[in-house]
C-alpha cells in the first residue's frame, strides 16, 4: 500500500503543473488504502481458522473472497512450513499442505512458529501412517 502513496506524494510535490490531477489521484489512492488497512486485517483475522483431525486438514482464509479447503490426510503429499522476514519478526510461520492437485495447497498462515513446527511434524507422521499418497 505504501509505495504508490509515496510515489504519488513525491510526484505531487515535484511536478507543479500536474499538481491538481496528481493530488486528486493521491487522495483517491490514500483513502482507498486507508480503508483497506483499517478493514482488511481485522476481517481477515476473523475469517481465518484451521483444524486438523486424524483424517483431514481444514483451513479457511480470505476476507472478501473466502475459501475453505479440506484435504484428507490420506491425500497429503508434502507438509512444509514457511516464514518470511516479517513473519519471523513476529515469531510466526505458515503451513503449506500439498496434495497431488495442481489447483493449490491448503495453506494455514500466521501460526505461532512452534505450533506450526509441531503441526507439520504430526501431520507428516499421520500422512505416513495412512496408506495412499494422493494418487
Amino acid at each position, binding site marked *: 500500500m505504501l509505495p504508490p502513496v509515496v510515489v504519488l506524494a513525491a510526484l505531487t510535490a515535484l511536478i507543479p503543473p500536474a499538481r491538481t490531477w496528481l493530488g486528486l489521484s493521491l487522495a483517491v489512492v490514500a483513502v482507498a488504502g486507508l480503508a483497506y488497512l483499517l478493514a482488511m486485517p481485522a476481517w481477515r483475522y*476473523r*475469517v481465518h*481458522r484451521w*483444524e486438523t*483431525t486424524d*483424517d*483431514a486438514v*481444514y483451513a*479457511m482464509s480470505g476476507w*472478501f*473472497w*473466502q*475459501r*475453505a*479447503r*479440506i*484435504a*484428507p490426510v*490420506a*491425500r497429503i503429499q508434502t507438509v512444509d512450513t514457511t516464514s518470511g522476514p516479517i513473519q519471523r519478526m513476529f515469531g510466526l510461520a505458515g503451513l503449506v499442505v500439498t*496434495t*497431488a*492437485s*495442481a*489447483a*493449490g495447497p*491448503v495453506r494455514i498462515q500466521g501460526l505461532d512458529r512452534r505450533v506450526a513446527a509441531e503441526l507439520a511434524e504430526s501431520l507428516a507422521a499421520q500422512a505416513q501412517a495412512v496408506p495412499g499418497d*494422493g*494418487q
Partner: protein
Amino acid sequence: MTGPEWQRLDPRMLAISLTWLVPPVCSTLLTLLITGGSLDLAAVITLGSIGLTFLIVAVVFGARLLTTRFRITGDRVELRSGAFVRRHRAVPRERIRSVDVTASPFHRALGLRVVRISAGTHVAAESRHLTLDGVSRDGAERLRRLLAPDGASADTALAVLRLRWLRYAPLTLWGVAGVGFVAGGFARLLDSLRINPAEVGFLRSAWSGLTGLPLWAAITVPVLAVVLLGALTSLVTFAETWWDYRLEAAGGDALRLRRGLFSTRSLWLERRRLRGVQITEPLPLRLARGARLNAIAVGLGAADDRSTSAKSALLPPASRRETDRVAAAVLREEPGFLTGLRLAPAPRAALRRRVTWGLAAVALVEAPLVILGVLLTEVLLHIAWISSVVLVPVALAAAVDAYRNLGSALLGRYLVTRCGTYGRRTVLLDRSGILAWSVDQSAFQRRAGLATLVAMVGAGRGGYKIRDVSLADGLALVREATPGAFEWLLEPTQLLESTQLLEPIPDDRSGPAGDVSSLPGGPAL
C-alpha cells in the same frame, strides 16, 4: 558406471539441424523476389540478423545433438545432454506415465521419430518429460514397446476418422484467426524490410480491383475472402491433425490414440491415469450440435486441459452424439451413459449474479462514451445509446444462457459439472480421484447463500469448479460424491457454526440461506 551402454541419437539428425537454415534462406529469396533483386542496407541488416540468429540456433542444436546420450537400465531411463552445461536426467521406469512417438515432416523424410517419455507429478519437475529427439523408426517402436508395455490382447477401435466430421472443422474459428496472424506477420515483414505494400505488384492490382467495385462489394468481398481462407486453413489444419485418426482400447486397461498426416502423433493412456473427460461446446460448434472431447488424465500437464489442446483431445470436433458415445466408451460405461443427462439447475440467485455481470460489462463499455459525450460532443451520446440497444439484449441473452448451462449431478462413478456460455464445458470427474475440496465464496455469494465448490484432482486443470450452487446443496453434493473422506467436517451444522461460512447465521435457522434443518437429499440425479 555399470549397466547398459550409453546410446547416441541417430546421426541423421544432423541433417535436421540444417533445417533451421530454411527460414532465413526462404525469407531472403522472398525479399529478392518481391523487390526484384535489389536490397537496401536496412533489408540487408534485417536479413543478416535473421540469418545469423538461425545459424546460431542450428549450431547449438547440432552441438546438443552430438553430446546427447541416453540409456535404459533395468529400473530407469537416463538422459545426458549439453555441450557447455551438462545435464543428467533420469526417470524411474515405474513412474513412466506415457510414451508418445511423434515426427515432424523432416523427421519422416529421414525415417526418424521423436520419443517423448512423460512421468507423473511424483518426479522432480525438470525430469518430468524426457525427449529423445531423433531415434530411428524401428528404435522408437522398440522403445515404446519396452517402456510402455503393450497389451497383448487384440485392440478394438473405439473411433476412427469419419469424413462427416469435416463439416465441424471450419467452426473452430482458429482458421480465421490464423489468416489474421499470417497477414499481420506478412505486413510486419514488409515493414521491417522497408517495402511499401503499394509497390508490391499483386497487392497493388488487388487494391485497384477492390476500389473499382461498388461499396457493398468492396466490403463483402474481403470479408468473404477471409472467411473462405479461414475455413480452408481450418480444413487443412484438421487434415494435418486428424488424418488417419484412430482411438482404440489396447488390452483392458489402456487407450491408444494415433493421428496426423505429416507429423504423426500417438498417445498412450492408461485407464488408471484417467480422472475423467471434458466435453466442450464452443458456441459455433454448439449451434451445429457438435462438441470436442478431451481427456483429464494424470501426466498430461495442466496446459493440456484446454479444450483446444490437441494433446489431450480424444476426438476431433464431432457431433454431440458421437462425443457422448466415445466418452462413454473411454470411461468404460454403457453406450447410452450420457444420453439424456439431467443436471440439477443452479438457484435463481445465480441468474441474478449473471445478469448483474452482463449489465455491468455493458456499463463499463458505455461509461467512457457517456462521460466523454457529456464533456465533449453529443455524437458520442448517440453512439452510446445505439450501441446499448444492441449490447444490452446480447448481455442479457448471454446471462440467461450462462445460467441455464450451470448445473451439477452425480452420475454413477462420476461427478458432473457444467458451466460457461461461449464455451460450454461439461466435466465428468471420477469421484474416487477427487483429492480435496475447496469451498469458495465472495461476499456477494455469501449474501446470496451461494458457493463455488472446487473439486481438486491430480490431473488436468487441477481443480474443477461447480459454480454458484446453494451452499447447503453443494455440501450435500460433496458428502454424496466423496463419502467417508470429508464426512464429519462437512456436517453442515458444524461447518456453519465452527467457521461462520455463512454470515450472519440466522438465529431461527429457517432463513433461505442457512436452512440446514430441511436439507434436500442432494441434487436430483
